[in-house]
């Protein structure tokens, strides 16, 4: 069992307009144990307030699978915030 004080480092990827708002394509961040994707997004929305308005029109992925915002993160997870897809 990880102790409460232990932090986990995750990789975060930004695409589309999120990449333009944040001005970065990827980041590495230490999170408190038991942090979920919602709290990870909140962290970036505090740093880049323009991101907040897009929260309801995003999905999240963890390790390249679409995943709910309540997913708890683990060390070395790769998280991405994905705008509506428009391939084709």
């Amino acid at each position, binding site marked *: 069992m990880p102790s409460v004080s232990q932090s986990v480092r995750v990789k975060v*990827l930004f*695409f*589309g*307009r999120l990449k333009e708002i944040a001005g970065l394509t990827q980041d590495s961040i230490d999170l408190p144990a038991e942090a979920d994707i919602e709290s990870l997004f909140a962290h970036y929305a505090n740093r880049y307030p323009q991101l907040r308005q897009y929260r309801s*029109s*995003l*999905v*999240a*992925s*963890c*390790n*390249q*699978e*679409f*995943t*709910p915002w*309540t*997913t708890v993160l*683990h*060390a*070395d*997870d790769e998280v*991405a915030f*994905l*705008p*509506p*897809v*428009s*391939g*084709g």
Partner: protein
Amino acid sequence: MATPSSDITKLVHEPIDPVALAAHVRGNADGAIVIFDGFVRDRSKNRRTLYLEYEAYEPMALAKIQEIAAHLHNQFSIHRVAMVHRLGRLEIGETSVYIAVSAPHRAAAFDACRYAIDTLKRTVPIWKKEYFEDGSVWADGELPPVPSATSAVKPAS
């Protein structure tokens, strides 16, 4: 039936070669190939488009395309699949996505090809930015369905 390993699924940064892809899926036991060739239109909502730029979450996009191809084999009586999406800057008229499905009979090929492009547009993490004379916008898209929290299985790291 061919194994999915004989399919072609890829993301490319150079022009797509439709002739080679159609030839790849064509087999002697087939009676039909259905092709979807998606290419860049010169306008978007009545604005003149100059060019498009596509970007992708590449490893995930490729995995999702491969999932679609595998699903086609499970769901439809088909032979081979080629599914290729191009990334980067594309000019008017250039092919952005090309899907070819071969099958002994046409109905399965039509159904599978339709399913493939519809599912790609809804679930594959690729984004399109449209450039106009007076600026650029990210194209409206679709939000992929996400498994519910109760049914989600945490993927292995």
